[in-house]
């Protein structure tokens, strides 16, 4: 009898432990509702933490307990895809990178449409940036920025070579200037991504080309793209450019290389600004941001690209609250100003672009040589080409990163045309 009793007690304990661990914590309403958030960028996390604080001050009756988590890029998207498919385990709110976004629009979309919160201020947005996170007229994500591509010059190196960056108007000028820099300083003019898309994509988008067209067809191997890749190859072959150490502009090795004055320039969308300030502190005061060189004398000088859409998942504990908070963080005027001040992104609401706070001193104005970074941006506002985000895009980007650039630029086992054609076929 005693044994049986002991056994029962033990069993109860075990079950108790299992269920205690599995049960959801119930937050007391006084503290607010819990809101979990995943991202792959710790800078994004600090932004949302700040906005959550502001939200709690302004909405004492709808407080949130913000629970952010930063995961590695691939892991986060994989984990999210699986938990959305499984119907459990996803966060309330999540950052999804543009190149991965179409993966989440397959089948019955597991994200919540944001149309009702966007509609009141829709006309104040650069709408192209809302469209990239949409399907069938439903907007599922809010953008961080316009993502205008720019070129970052290290003026210390350019001065040593006697080059004035303002004189570089076209990509041909750029090549010539690069040769002088190489000859006089021994340093490369540029770095090129060989397992990433960020060197190639801005260049083709600037010329009006793209990876997929407006109807979603793969156009990776069109004439313009081939010519562009040939130009990149020439940059590398002539020693004007080197392959980015680590293969791309987000590798640990790359930050170290640039921080030591490794190359005289590089082009990236504007959101790269905070990588300079945070990961390459020694270049403070030496970097000048300018529009990208043109391809033709009357060509455009930028293209808006990259980006991260923040979405609310259908597993959110309180969908309305999550939507309202997301709109407050990324869609409000204040939020857009903080996006600029803290993250250094060009905010997606154009009605804040002439706000005096856009010119106030912050860590970016101190780091960069430009008198007015935003003035430079306003100057090219009408020259920012946009890109198409369609279902095939992740597949195309994947092929660019895994084979096209490596084959054509790094190992040079195929000509640019061959590499592009093969990559395009694989993605189709």
């Amino acid at each position: 009898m005693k044994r049986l009793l002991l056994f029962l007690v033990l069993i109860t304990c075990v079950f108790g432990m299992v269920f205690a661990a599995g049960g959801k914590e119930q937050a007391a309403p006084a503290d607010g509702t819990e809101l979990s958030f995943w991202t792959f960028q710790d800078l994004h996390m600090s932004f949302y933490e700040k906005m959550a604080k502001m939200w709690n001050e302004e909405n004492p009756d709808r407080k949130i307990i913000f629970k952010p988590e930063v995961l590695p890029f691939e892991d986060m998207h994989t984990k999210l895809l699986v938990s959305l498919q499984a119907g459990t385990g996803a966060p309330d709110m999540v950052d999804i990178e543009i190149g991965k976004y179409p993966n989440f629009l397959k089948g019955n979309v597991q994200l919540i449409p944001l149309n009702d919160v966007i509609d009141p201020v829709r006309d104040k947005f650069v709408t192209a940036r809302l469209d990239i996170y949409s399907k069938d007229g439903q907007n599922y994500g809010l953008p961080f920025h316009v993502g205008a591509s720019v070129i970052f010059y290290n003026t210390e190196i350019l001065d040593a070579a006697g080059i004035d960056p303002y004189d570089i108007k076209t990509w041909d000028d750029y090549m010539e200037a690069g040769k002088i820099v190489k000859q006089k300083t021994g340093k490369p003019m540029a770095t090129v991504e060989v397992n990433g898309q960020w060197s190639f994509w801005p260049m083709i988008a600037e010329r009006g080309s793209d990876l997929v067209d407006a109807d979603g067809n793969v156009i990776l191997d069109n004439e313009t793209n081939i010519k562009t890749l040939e130009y990149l190859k020439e940059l590398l072959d002539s020693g004007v450019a080197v392959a980015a150490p680590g293969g791309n502009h987000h590798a640990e090795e790359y930050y170290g290389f640039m921080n030591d004055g490794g190359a005289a320039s590089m082009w990236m969308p504007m959101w790269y600004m905070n990588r300079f300030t945070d990961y390459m502190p020694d270049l403070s005061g030496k970097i000048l941001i300018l529009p990208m060189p043109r391809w033709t004398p009357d060509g455009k000088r930028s293209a808006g690209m990259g980006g991260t859409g923040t979405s609310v998942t259908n597993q959110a504990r309180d969908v309305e609250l999550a939507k309202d908070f997301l709109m407050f963080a990324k869609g409000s005027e204040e939020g857009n100003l903080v996006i600029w001040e803290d993250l250094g992104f060009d905010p997606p609401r154009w009605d804040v672009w002439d706000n005096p706070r856009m010119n106030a001193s912050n860590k970016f104005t101190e780091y960069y040589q430009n008198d007015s970074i935003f003035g430079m941006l306003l100057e090219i506002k009408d020259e920012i080409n946009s890109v198409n985000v369609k279902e095939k895009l992740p597949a195309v980007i994947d092929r660019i990163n895994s084979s096209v650039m490596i084959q054509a630029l790094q190992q040079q086992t195929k000509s640019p045309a061959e590499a592009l054609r093969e990559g395009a076929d694989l993605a189709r």
Partner: protein
Amino acid sequence: MKLKQTIGAAKITPYVFIFPFIASFLIFYLYPIISTIIMGFQQVYPGQVTFIGLENYQKLNNPEFKVALTNSFRYTMYTLALLIPIPLLLSVWLNSGNKTVNTLYRSILYVPTLISVVVAGTIMRLLFASSNKSIVNTIAIALGAEPRQWLLGGPHQAMILLLILALWRWVGVNIIYFLSGLQAIPDELYEAADIDGASPSQKLWRITIPLLKSTTIFVTTISIFGGLAMFEESYILWSGTASPNNVGLTIVGYLYKKGFQEGEMGMASSIGIVLLVIVFTISISYLKIFGFFKTEDKR
């Protein structure tokens, strides 16, 4: 009292004891296998499942999957070529001579097995980083060689890195298998050989290797499984992104990419089935050729 008798009955007891295994087999093996076979014929998106027949398998006829197949097979062949002879010789060496010293060496060689692939792979990635300041490049420069972008190099370079990792990690395990095989060989055989005046190499070829046959077959079989199922090593070495020119893409890597990175669960299932068929065919025919089933019968 009656209850006790029923439970104790010879008819029921065996089933009670094998129940845990049967249950876990049904839930964790049979159900997933059947469900994978079905999903292989479907397009599986969240909330939208459509039957598409053989389309998933037809889509597998693409250059990328071929690269994955070649990589997996090459990797398996090379690991077999390295991970059988080296541990065998090491274990023969460890089995002779001073016992205390050998125990020490044995532990040292076994330690890498206990370290997670993720940790080992990450350390390896940092050792071979592209920067001139990475350890391997520092050594290369000190020796007067050119620093290299190791992980971005061609397929040979990539394969060498993967093999170094495999060698470092698996030699210890295989040594343990071979040692246990060696200890089962009676000393009398060697004594008799000594009396007949056999040289050490004759003893190795005539006694040790033939008597290790069943161990060798076992080690080879698990090495084939391990080689064809390789994934973590290349995933970690190229930090989760696509490896340059797909040099590190394996069958399981392709499955992961399709299923978890692109959300094509149906196609991923079909890749899983293909892998299952390949592994099954190879190992069964291998075991048949070497008469593994036969020797078991004779004993």
